[in-house]
């Protein structure tokens, strides 16, 4: 599967620093369309920081990010979403007091247009759009296998279902790139297995996946290519089989 697609994300010498800590040191990565790309590294290596820069939550101090041929706007999460980057969060961030269905419907926001006037007058176009939003949200709940939870409040879902809901919400924004921040954290083996099937399905349906994960087995089994961060710098980027044997990687994981 690897190597086939064209370049989707080209991150060049991205740097970010907090106070005196260099969280990202000139990190360059390139993700090709259609692949599952893994980003691993020890705790504090800068994986989530990279995610936050990529999705516009942080402004990078240096470097640039080109996504699907266009420069990414720094520090504008909603623009990143509009350009086709969706994400989940390490510590799940759902709209707790909205139902599962409503959560996914919010995800459609960026691809729909109805304004105040449309909402109040509810003209034909708005009605059609609203119906389409609902239909798509229901489809996505099916897609992640939690359709029977549609009317439950997000906060009442089980942990695994919350992860799935967050993925469904991210998919609702019609991303080209789906960035998952430790989706398997806290899952048991069965759930992780199901998650793996889900992620593979998402890729099959044409969405490129960027995966931060601690579960090395999952990453190695699932990803086409893997990059390893350590102390904010990329120390290795290759197919899993090569990365696994790379002495720098072994040292980063065992050395500290």
């Amino acid at each position, binding site marked *: 599967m690897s190597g086939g697609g064209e370049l989707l994300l080209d991150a060049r010498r991205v740097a970010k620093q907090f106070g005196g800590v260099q969280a990202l040191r000139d990190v360059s990565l390139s993700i090709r369309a259609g692949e599952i790309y893994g980003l691993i590294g020890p705790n504090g290596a800068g994986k989530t920081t990279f995610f936050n820069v990529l*999705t*516009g*939550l942080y402004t990078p101090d240096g470097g640039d990010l080109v996504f699907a041929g266009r420069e990414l706007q720094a520090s504008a*999460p*909603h623009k990143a*979403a*509009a350009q086709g980057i*969706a*994400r989940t*969060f390490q510590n799940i*961030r*759902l*709209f*707790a*007091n*909205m*139902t599962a269905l*409503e959560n996914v*419907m*919010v*995800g*459609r*926001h*960026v*691809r*729909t247009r*109805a*304004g*105040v006037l*449309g*909402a*109040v007058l*509810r003209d034909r176009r*708005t009605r059609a*759009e*609203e119906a389409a*939003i609902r239909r798509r949200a229901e489809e996505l709940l099916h897609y992640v296998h939690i359709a029977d939870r549609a009317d*439950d*409040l997000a*906060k*009442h879902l089980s942990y695994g279902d919350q992860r799935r809901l967050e993925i469904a*919400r*991210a998919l*609702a*924004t019609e991303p080209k790139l789906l960035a998952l921040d430790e989706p398997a954290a806290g899952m048991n083996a069965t759930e992780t297995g199901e998650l793996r099937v889900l992620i593979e399905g998402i890729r099959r349906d044409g969405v490129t996946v960027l995966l931060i994960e601690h579960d090395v087995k999952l990453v190695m089994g699932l990803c086409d290519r893997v990059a390893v961060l350590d102390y904010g710098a990329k120390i290795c980027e290759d197919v899993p089989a090569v990365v696994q044997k790379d002495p720098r990687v072994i040292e980063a994981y065992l050395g500290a």
Partner: protein
Amino acid sequence: MSFLDRLRHSRRAALGATLFLGLLLAALPFLVGNGLGNSWLRILDFALLYIMLALGLNIVVGFAGLLDLGYIAFYAVGAYLYALLASPHFGLHLPVWAIIPAGAALAGFFGILLGAPTLRLRGDYLAIVTLGFGEIVRIFLNNLNAPLNITNGPQGISGIDPIRLGGVSLARPMEFLGFTIPSLHGYYYLFLALALLIVFVTIRLEHSRIGRAWVAIREDEIAAKACGINTRNIKLLAFAMGASFGGVAGGLFAGFQAFVSPESFSLMESIMVLCMVVLGGMGHIPGVILGGILLTVLPEIFRHGAGPVQQMLFGKVLLDPEALRMLLFGLALIVVMLYRPAGLWPSPTRRREFRGDAR
């Protein structure tokens, strides 16, 4: 199945209930006017104004989760605009259909003016800044009488034109098919119509892309951004929408009272409206309406009752009824927050979590 559930499931029952409610609302001023007297009819009119205010604030606080303690400033903007454009003060006498929309627009503009610099602030900071904004507006209303007399200062503006619809003044009794309809009834129907319009707009907004975005921001702003919501614009929209409702209510208030002064727009009024939203049920339209009615009517009952009851018990009025009323008010606020944090009539989904049978 409860009565309410049955209503939801049967179209005929729903139609019947709507019809009944419509008739009740239509007949209410006659029932109240004949049964309790004109002072209660005035209170009824005020209740409708407060419902509009509470629904406006509910968009900001209840939907978008932005605590606004200066909301009454928008009411003031609407009221003073009406007062300036339809009174002898400047000698202008513009018609109501021009002023009310202008008041809504101007209040909406003020909403954006307040919202823009405060967007990045967290909840409690926002509360204090909005409170400061409300006070600034009041201080300016109080002092803009010199060197150029714009607001007439603390004396306020009097002699404001009554609201006229189709050439008929609502301040005078109307002849209609041989019946005489008293002035307060005319105002009641006008206020009712506008309150219903605002209810309608709010319901439509709640179940729309915009309404979902507001609630999403309230629930988790960062996640909302990640979903592609332009939180800045959507928050400003909430401020502007909420403020414009306040502007409408303010204009009606000025025409109804024929007098405005800065005293009507104190912080206490902002807090009063906030209490309607919070005690009724933040984010739940029927709850907010209930809050508006309760907090207009109960204090009045108290105002009328507290003096005589004390007279009866102690032979004289020991405690200032006004202070007593506010005291109970503050206590109610505390007790409701401690024991019913979602309000007296919370939305069904939020109520479920209190019963604990969500699964």
